[in-house]
């Protein structure tokens, strides 16, 4: 069977690419420290020596639209083009091309549906910065095949937080039962407190530093019970109007497992939102 060699949860900050590649007067004062932190985080994936990456993210109204909106969607294609005109325009993100791990997509779809998730699929998916940002930060050489999985954290009605956790647990079971000798890492990105298009946006910190501290603690300690007891679809409006992206972190806590402490934790308090980086090694260490 395949081996799950790393579980990684991260924020996906679309400004990292521009900040890290800018020079001279254009380089923001926080860029050097940010790059240092990202490179240290990257090492946690490199050490796990993965062959395949399962990438969990959320389309930001790029390909998925309100006339036909899936809650959970798995890409099943040999290739994925990536990044969109409005992401090039606003964030300076480059166009990218990924290879797909199509047999794992097939397996996740078949077994996931049989496990109770009526997963949507796409045979031609252009992916966005929720998946390209962690490739840029964690695997910039972009040399590994992927399985993209999209969640709806954006267009209500949304699945509830517990459903994200259940899907995470199921993804783990499916990866570990995949008849393959590949080493698989599951990487998912979301947000801590975040406001977009509202009065609390682009402040000196994330809109709710208290929530961020609590969230980091839940994730770092694998405290799914504590997290699920406080986080609801309604409660997520309070820390910021885009904070439902935190449910992708909850999904990744489901992949990592109840009570599983992260092996690597780092954060970086930036304007607008707090960066947060977590890595678990399911087999207790890197082989």
């Amino acid at each position, binding site marked *: 069977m395949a081996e799950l060699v790393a579980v990684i949860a991260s924020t996906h900050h679309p400004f990292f690419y521009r900040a890290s590649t800018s020079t001279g007067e254009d380089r923001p004062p926080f860029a050097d420290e940010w790059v240092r932190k990202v490179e240290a985080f990257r090492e946690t994936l490199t050490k796990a020596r993965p062959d395949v990456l399962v990438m969990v993210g959320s389309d930001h109204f790029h390909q998925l639209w309100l006339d036909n909106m899936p809650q959970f969607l798995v890409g099943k294609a040999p290739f994925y083009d990536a990044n969109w005109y409005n992401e090039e325009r606003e964030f300076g993100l480059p166009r990218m091309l990924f290879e797909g791990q199509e047999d794992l997509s097939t397996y996740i779809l078949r077994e996931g549906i049989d496990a109770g998730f009526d997963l949507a699929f796409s045979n031609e998916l252009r992916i966005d910065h929720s998946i390209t940002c962690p490739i840029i930060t964690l695997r910039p050489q972009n040399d590994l095949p992927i399985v993209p999985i999209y969640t709806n954290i954006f267009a209500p009605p949304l699945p509830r937080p517990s459903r994200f956790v259940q899907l995470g647990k199921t993804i783990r079971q499916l990866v570990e039962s995949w008849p393959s000798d590949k080493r698989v890492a599951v990487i998912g990105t979301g947000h801590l407190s975040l406001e977009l298009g509202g009065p609390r946006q682009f*402040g000196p910190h994330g809109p709710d530093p208290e929530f961020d501290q609590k969230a980091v603690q839940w994730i770092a300690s694998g405290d799914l019970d504590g997290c699920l007891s406080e986080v609801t679809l309604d409660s997520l409006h309070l820390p910021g109007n885009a904070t439902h992206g935190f449910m992708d972190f909850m999904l990744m806590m489901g992949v990592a497992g109840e009570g599983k402490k992260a092996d690597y934790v780092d954060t970086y308090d930036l304007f607008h939102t707090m960066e947060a980086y977590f890595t678990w090694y399911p087999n207790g260490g890197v082989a």
Partner: protein
Amino acid sequence: MSKYLLNKFLFTVDRDPELVERYREDPKGMVEAWESEYANRILNCHGAESSTWLRFEDAEREALAAHDYPRLFELGAHPFLTLTLFIAMFERDHEPLGFQLEYARRLGHFALPYPDIAT
């Protein structure tokens, strides 16, 4: 209320560089043209199979024609779509982050709970 159609406007304009510029330069004319030419198109369907029933309410049409993003927020347009498109149109006229901060200030009178964005 046709929040869906407001969002459809923001979505279809934001992804098209030509429409972004037309909306910046001539919002009233652009909104009228969009409503007659685009509003009923189902996005992945042939033009002959367009919908027949979609139209803005007056308040929505006026808010779009006035570039009135606080009013769009109040009407329940998706904040991410509004923000992204308005950054595309007006960030260029400000210092770095200046437009985003002005945007926040102009929405400063909204308190929780924010207007419902469910469509």
